């Protein structure tokens, strides 16, 4: 813990009982610092848990027909009960509730994207029904994937708007389900940042396909429209220019790096999963824009095949992921192809060296 950029290194060497004592008797600032240090324990515990067996995949409905989506939207009615009350099922007419309709349409766009582009039948490629709950909690400023369904808060209206407003955020959450089904990248440190990056990439591609945008015309923003009026920012993240999405008195400044030289060492945020994802995000942006055309056709295909590659492990870091994207570019387009060269150069430009052209990776 002591080789982090922690501003108060003394907390690294104090035993927990002393920390607790500071927490008990210290002034507010000292208490906050002690709480931060104690919170590190949560990350380490999550790390140990991730080494254990993953939960069994949700059961597959054997009656699902290939190419048939089945969506169900629930409302938590501002409680935290999941899934809540069913308000719209597949084929039902639009509701009078904009969040319900945005969730329904967003799930549909995301399902269509994976089916039409990569022939993937839902999250598990076996027709898993898609469930989402809206109106979760009171003024709840978040959206998350609970390993079975998507959950969206309404936002407090002061910092955040409702979380169904951005199609790429819906795609982002659903892609967490795809990653869980395929690579099961641990939600910590570099594997966690890759997990986040994969969700940003395919979330953005869902939006780009919906808008029929070529890579050069896309905004490459995640969560545009999510920040409330008055907040100084345009989105949650920018894949084009990581670190530029917001700079605001309340939110602080977007901390995302675009290059390994600015990699953030932290135990917060599960080891910086939403921070360092800027690096692989930018590598994808560079590859997609250099390859031109629609980003989902070449770069997206390469990244998708990498996510499905058995050589990608739960604990893989940036370097292994990058090497596998190069390997899949070579497999799909040829070892001396432009696509392979572009992928290698994209990673090099964010400071992740790709070893060789042909990977010496054991399964």
């Amino acid at each position, binding site marked *: 813990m002591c080789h982090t950029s922690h501003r108060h290194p003394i907390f690294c060497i104090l035993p927990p009982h002393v920390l*607790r004592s500071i927490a008990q008797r210290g002034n*507010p600032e000292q208490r*906050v610092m002690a709480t931060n240090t104690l919170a590190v324990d949560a990350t380490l515990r999550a790390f140990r848990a991730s080494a254990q067996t993953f939960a069994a995949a949700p059961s597959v409905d054997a009656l699902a027909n290939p190419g048939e989506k089945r969506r169900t939207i629930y409302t938590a009615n501002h409680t935290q009960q999941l899934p809540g009350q069913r308000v719209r099922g597949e084929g039902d007419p639009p509701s009078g509730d904009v969040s319900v309709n945005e969730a329904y349409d967003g799930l549909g766009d995301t399902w269509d994207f994976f089916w039409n582009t990569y022939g993937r039948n839902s999250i598990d490629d076996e027709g898993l029904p898609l469930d989402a709950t809206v109106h979760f909690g009171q003024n709840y400023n978040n*959206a998350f*994937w609970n390993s079975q369904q998507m959950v969206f808060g309404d936002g407090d209206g002061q910092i955040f708007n409702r979380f169904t407003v951005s199609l790429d955020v819906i795609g982002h959450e659903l892609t967490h389900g795809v990653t*869980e089904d395929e690579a099961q990248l641990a939600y910590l440190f570099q594997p966690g940042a890759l997990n986040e990056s994969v969700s940003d990439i395919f979330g953005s591609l869902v939006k780009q396909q919906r808008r029929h945008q070529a890579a050069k015309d896309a905004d490459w923003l995640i969560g545009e429209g999510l920040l409330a009026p008055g907040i100084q920012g345009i989105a*949650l993240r920018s894949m084009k220019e990581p670190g530029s999405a917001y700079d605001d008195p309340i*939110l602080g400044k977007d901390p995302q790096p675009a290059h390994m030289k600015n990699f953030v060492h932290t135990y917060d945020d599960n080891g910086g999963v939403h*921070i360092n994802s800027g690096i692989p995000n930018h590598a994808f942006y560079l590859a997609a824009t250099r390859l031109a055309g629609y980003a989902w056709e070449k770069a997206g295909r390469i990244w998708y095949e990498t996510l499905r590659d058995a050589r990608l492990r739960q604990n893989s870091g940036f370097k292994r992921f990058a090497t596998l994207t190069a390997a899949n570019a070579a497999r799909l387009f040829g070892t001396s192809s432009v696509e392979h060269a572009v992928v290698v150069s994209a990673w090099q430009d964010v400071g992740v060296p790709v070893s060789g052209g042909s990977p010496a990776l054991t399964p």
Partner: protein
Amino acid sequence: MLVCRFPEDHRRSPRKHADPTVRAADKKCSVQITFKTSGGIAYFPGLAAGKTIDVDTLPQDRQAEIRRLLESTKFFDLPARTAAKPGAADYQTYTIMVSDRDRQKTVAVSDPVPPELARLVELLRELTSR
């Protein structure tokens, strides 16, 4: 020694039917809560720092509710950590540190928060927002 009206003190208190807010003004009963939210769909440096509430300085109804919740949830006996499900992502984790003169306890829970702690987390979120 008579201190704050928390579960274990309850039995020893000669005034066990007293309004829990009555003793709040007593400095010996000072209760502090530090609340920190981490995780979520993005990392915001400005929202990442924990905030400390001096419960005694809150309006009476808030003080009473917090003291009731700490008792009804048996806060000092809760497990230190309720882990998120494997495979879950973008969930928030709430770290709650409560201390009085004699005791200190830190509990971390992740979304979706267990029903018995939902109100406490909601109230602390409201009290620490801006």
